[in-house]
């Protein structure tokens, strides 16, 4: 009796604490639920434009007090889908990896927003080049990047060279530079991705119809092999042989140079041409503000009409099925696609507009590509159409560091078939 009596006041005090804590917790919850607007997250992780989007989101919040948008640049996308807590609005690079989400029906239908988005038909076609979800518009393109060969105008002028429009003219340019002791191309082969998106994509895209090739490869499914009617071995061999020929005119230390080395070397005029995308322009200009550079598509045939620009949908918008606030996310999407907002984004970040009525690109250097973009002379790179599980970048690295083209392409065909077999495509 005495013991329990002694412990009573202590017990009651603890209960009091518990009750107080619970009350505070409950109060906190109710405060959260009633006063603030629904919170939606915008997932956007392209490093160069994170500050830009942070500002955009805050001005959206000011204009739409009923919605609270937050900017998420760091989550793991696959993990967030695996946890069933995907972002409410995604604004991401559209490639084969992204297409996986739409193919499995994880992205909601946005077809009713298409008229408002007014996307150019040629750009909309790019979306359909990857596996889509039947009957849905899963993504809306937002910004497009155009990439081609950078060239140093001063070096070209010094040696009396014109921009080549055919493959043999290009070889002629390389020969002239070589005999003058100038490195024609600066390669950064230690970074495999620079070869894949550069020389590999440009040489293949300049020679064959990439979209058609991959459509036929996907249709083949598990039937694909190096003996089938289309195959990597058959269709990519010639362009890659021509590309390897061009690789003879590169810097001697290419195999140990990385992307950053390449930017420095090109900015310092160590080579006449450099195969990089628009993302490198800012850095090259920062390294050498007087840099006099232009851009041209790598000619891979004898017909100047075959020249095409490598593009990618650098940013595309989508709303997951799993979003709890689709309506609010659509408000944010509509805000972002307003012409004055989207055009300003592209003008500031070296992008090409995706609307049918987009203004021309503003960057001096990228203007060289506008004509090609306008007549839809563009393609999405081979490297972005191959599932990342196939180490295409590494394969290109081995080709351009002395490996066998035939063997590598045969491996690629084998990988493609094995991938189809485990995806159950057939």
């Amino acid at each position, binding site marked *: 009796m005495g013991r329990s009596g002694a412990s009573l006041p202590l017990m009651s005090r603890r209960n009091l604490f518990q009750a107080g804590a619970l009350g505070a917790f409950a109060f906190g919850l109710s405060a959260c639920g009633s006063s603030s607007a629904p919170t939606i997250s915008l997932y956007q992780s392209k490093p160069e434009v994170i500050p830009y989007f942070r500002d955009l989101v805050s001005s959206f919040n000011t204009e739409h007090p009923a919605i609270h948008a937050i900017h998420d640049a760091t989550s793991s996308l696959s993990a967030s*889908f695996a946890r069933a807590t995907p972002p409410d609005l995604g604004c991401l690079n559209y490639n084969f990896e992204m297409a996986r989400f739409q193919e499995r029906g994880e992205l909601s239908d946005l077809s009713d927003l298409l008229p408002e988005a007014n996307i150019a038909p040629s750009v909309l076609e790019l979306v359909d080049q990857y596996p889509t979800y039947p009957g849905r518009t899963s993504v809306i393109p937002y910004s497009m990047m155009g990439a081609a060969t950078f060239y140093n105008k001063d070096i070209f002028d010094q040696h009396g060279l014109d921009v080549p429009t055919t493959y043999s003219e290009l070889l002629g340019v390389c020969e002239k530079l070589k005999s003058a002791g100038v490195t024609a191309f600066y390669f950064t082969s230690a970074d495999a991705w620079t070869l894949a998106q550069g020389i590999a994509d440009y040489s293949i895209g300049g020679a064959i119809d990439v979209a058609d090739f991959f459509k036929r490869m996907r249709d083949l499914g598990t039937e694909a092999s190096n003996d089938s009617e289309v195959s990597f071995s058959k269709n990519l061999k010639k362009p890659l042989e021509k590309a390897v020929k061009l690789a003879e005119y590169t810097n001697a*230390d290419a195999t*140990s140079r990385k992307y950053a080395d390449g930017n420095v070397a090109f900015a310092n005029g160590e080579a006449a041409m450099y195969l990089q995308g628009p993302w490198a322009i800012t850095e090259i200009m920062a390294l050498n503000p007087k840099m006099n550079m232009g851009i041209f598509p790598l000619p891979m045939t004898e017909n100047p009409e075959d020249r095409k620009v490598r593009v990618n949908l650098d940013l595309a918008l989508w709303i997951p099925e799993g979003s709890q606030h689709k309506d609010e996310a659509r408000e944010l999407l509509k805000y972002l696609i307003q012409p004055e907002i989207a055009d300003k984004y592209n003008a500031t970040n070296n992008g090409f507009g995706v609307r049918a009525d987009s203004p021309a690109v503003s960057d001096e250097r990228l203007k060289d590509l506008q004509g090609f973009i306008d007549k839809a002379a563009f393609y999405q790179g081979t490297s972005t159409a191959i599932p990342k599980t196939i*180490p295409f970048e590494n394969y290109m*690295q081995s080709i351009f560091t002395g490996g066998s083209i035939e063997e590598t392409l045969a491996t690629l065909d084998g990988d493609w078939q094995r991938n189809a077999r*485990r995806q*159950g495509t057939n």
Partner: protein
Amino acid sequence: MSSVVSTTSKRRRRGRVEPMFYYFLVPALVLFTLCITVPALMGIYYSFTDSIGFGEYNFVGLNNYAVLFSDPAIVKSYLFTIGVSLLTVILVNVIALFLAIGLTSQIKMRTALRTIFVLPMVVSGIIISFVFQFIFANTVPAAAANMHLPFLQESILADPKLAWLAIVLVTTWQAVPSAMLIYIAALVTIPNDVYEASALDGAHSPQQLMRITLPMISGYVLINVILGFKGFLSMYDIIVGLTNGGPGTSTRSVAMTIFTGFDTGDYAYQMANSTIFFIITLAIALIQLRVSRGKAQF
């Protein structure tokens, strides 16, 4: 009530272990089950599906395994990983043992030297690999050019036939200290009078090493070999920093291949790969234990 009391007292009388000891096991057991066992079992389950890590999936039976065994890239990654691990574990243990012997003998600045040799352990693998990447890609070729050594002027990281060597070197550099610490701990347990007695009998140093030191620390050798080999099999960060699997695919380890499954939608396939990897690692550990059973001395 009374029956409960009587059964518990009966158990106690039989000398049953105090239940508190089991309670102590609970936190570790729960954490291990939740964080290791359950995810591993889930991974094995998904290896029989076509899951991409989320969303809907179908059962595909042994399809992933069938594809796996016909994939030359997978087979190559296993050969590469096991080969490099074997070589590294031998190098690490030989170097660590000699360093430990040196650092336990009566030399000047012993403590300072021990500290210096342990330093690589403190630096994270990815940083080490970036530093060495720079050394291999820039410093070594530049030095070779100055000394007119043409065969070293091209970075070994850029040579598909030699890049593995760089990975062995850097992994060894990083792994030696921890093995060395274990050997130092082992060597100080050997009583000095054993050496004195053998010296009186006319044994010279190599004989002492082979007949006394090695047998006396055989248990520690076993620990170092098993732990080291297990660690090297899952090598990842150093390769990412040095070659990222290249040139071509010449230095892709199993762990790197498995990791691609998480962000490329090849989840189920790489889960099948992980399952095979688990079985192989388990088999290697069992073989090592079986071979060394009874021979090791602690």
